[in-house]
């Protein structure tokens, strides 16, 4: 174990500030995605700038409807849980010297929250009592089985590099060299995992157009608002978490540490949003072999390299 980190814990009241940062990043992602969509269609850009407000107002006014015999309890747990999982992820992310909860197993905490998404998305698919939604839920689990183990072993690398699972220690251990520089494979697999658990870009097939929206097919009103917000929030949370994990935490010139964290996360998040239009969809049954035959060995070799470097350096 390395030295105890010197972070100030702000506790639950501070969670509001963390939630605000998460919301700002998520809104930024929605706007950027809208602008890119408008540009590729040659449509005017202005409506996409206010899309968040317009869509929120529309969905809040829309009456909730549910298919016959929908399992409403399970369905609403699924639609409202994604935002909660994203918020719990960022609660352990230090902004400069401050953190909501300085959990000593922060990396495992993040992993647990992203596994919670397995349950939430499948429940979202099940609860609607609609074949399209259910198929979407199963597609997500098929993708999840493929991306989760490589993601887990990608999370191991920074933990081994810093000899700690505490996010503050991991960020502090990068004062010399950012982990992204000498753990590129782990970082790439981590990014792939984040995009996948956010049902985004190439991994958006559980909510695909070919399934009439898949897990989102029957959602309406505030349920749809929460589920969509959860998807963007998860993407933003993954980008925020990458900062202490791989991108040196709050380290950077001129700006204060607490500001560098959202700035770095914003850049990574923009890349995630751009990836949506740059990469083709992945067929769920095809990802399994890629995940376990290519990514898993690659990231295990990465872990081995990190472990050897740490052991040699002493």
């Amino acid at each position, binding site marked *: 174990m390395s030295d105890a980190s010197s972070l100030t814990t702000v506790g639950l009241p501070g969670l509001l500030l963390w939630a605000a940062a998460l919301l700002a990043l998520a809104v930024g992602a929605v706007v950027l995605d809208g602008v890119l969509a408008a540009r590729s269609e040659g449509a005017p850009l202005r409506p996409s700038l206010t899309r968040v407000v317009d869509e929120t107002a529309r969905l809040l006014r829309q009456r909730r409807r549910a298919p016959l015999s929908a399992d409403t309890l399970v369905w609403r747990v699924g639609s409202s849980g994604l935002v909660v999982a994203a918020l719990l992820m960022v609660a352990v992310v230090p902004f400069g010297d401050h953190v909501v909860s300085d959990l000593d197993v922060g990396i495992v905490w993040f*992993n647990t929250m992203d596994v919670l998404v397995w349950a939430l998305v499948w429940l979202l698919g099940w609860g609607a009592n609609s074949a399209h939604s*259910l198929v979407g839920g199963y597609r997500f689990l098929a993708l999840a089985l493929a991306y989760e183990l490589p993601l887990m072993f990608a999370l191991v690398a920074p933990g081994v590099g810093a000899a700690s699972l505490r996010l503050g220690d991991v960020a502090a251990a990068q004062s010399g060299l950012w982990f992204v520089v000498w753990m590129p494979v782990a970082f790439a697999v981590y990014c792939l995992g984040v995009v996948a658990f956010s049902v985004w870009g190439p991994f958006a097939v559980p909510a695909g157009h070919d399934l009439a929206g898949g897990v989102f097919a029957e959602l309406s009103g505030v349920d749809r608002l929460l589920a969509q917000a959860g998807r963007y929030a998860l993407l933003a949370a993954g980008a925020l978490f990458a900062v202490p994990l791989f991108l040196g935490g709050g380290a950077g010139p001129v700006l204060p540490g607490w500001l560098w964290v959202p700035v770095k996360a914003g850049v990574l998040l923009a890349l995630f949003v751009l990836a949506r239009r740059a990469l083709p969809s992945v067929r769920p049954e*095809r990802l399994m072999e890629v995940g376990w035959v290519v990514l898993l060995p690659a990231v295990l070799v990465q872990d081995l390299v990190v472990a050897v470097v740490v052991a040699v350096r002493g």
Partner: protein
Amino acid sequence: MSGVLVDIGFWVLGVLAVASAVVVFVVDSMARATYALALSFVAVGLALLLLQQNYVGVVTVLMMVMEMAVMAVYMVMYMGMNPALMPMSMVHDKRAALAVSVAAFVVLGAGALLVPWPVRRGVPSPDVTAALGESLMGKQMLVMVVVSPVMVATIVGGIVLASGRTRYDRFGDDLDVRTPRDPERGGVGR
């Protein structure tokens, strides 16, 4: 954490764990039963945090949620003709099952209450997770090291014996087919 908060946390999580475990057998939906069980395990995992076993507690939640997500798929898949997609009873042989489960609960609960628990001597070690690992595994490390490859070999052997298709089905009698004949194409062009 102060003693009162720990007490409140223990009782809330304990009641939640038992109540959601009972719910597993009351509900009529596979999804609800599976995730009621998941909730019960999550409560147990969070209760471990009260012992300062942060790693063990958080990992328990992780493993159990993952396990239940996969189990829901298997339960629906193996239920034959898929009544699992419809409302169905979660109990079989009600009387015997109830008697056995009540007896097991009473025996285990009585054991936990009646056993003469040792009084604490000294202070807990600063890293209780490492201490727990040491006392569980320390002397048995050799056994664990031997058992794990045996377990992996058993799993691989079981899959090989159970699999209907062998490498000769995939690559031909002389194993000279370049692209294997699989019902699903893989993602790496094999």
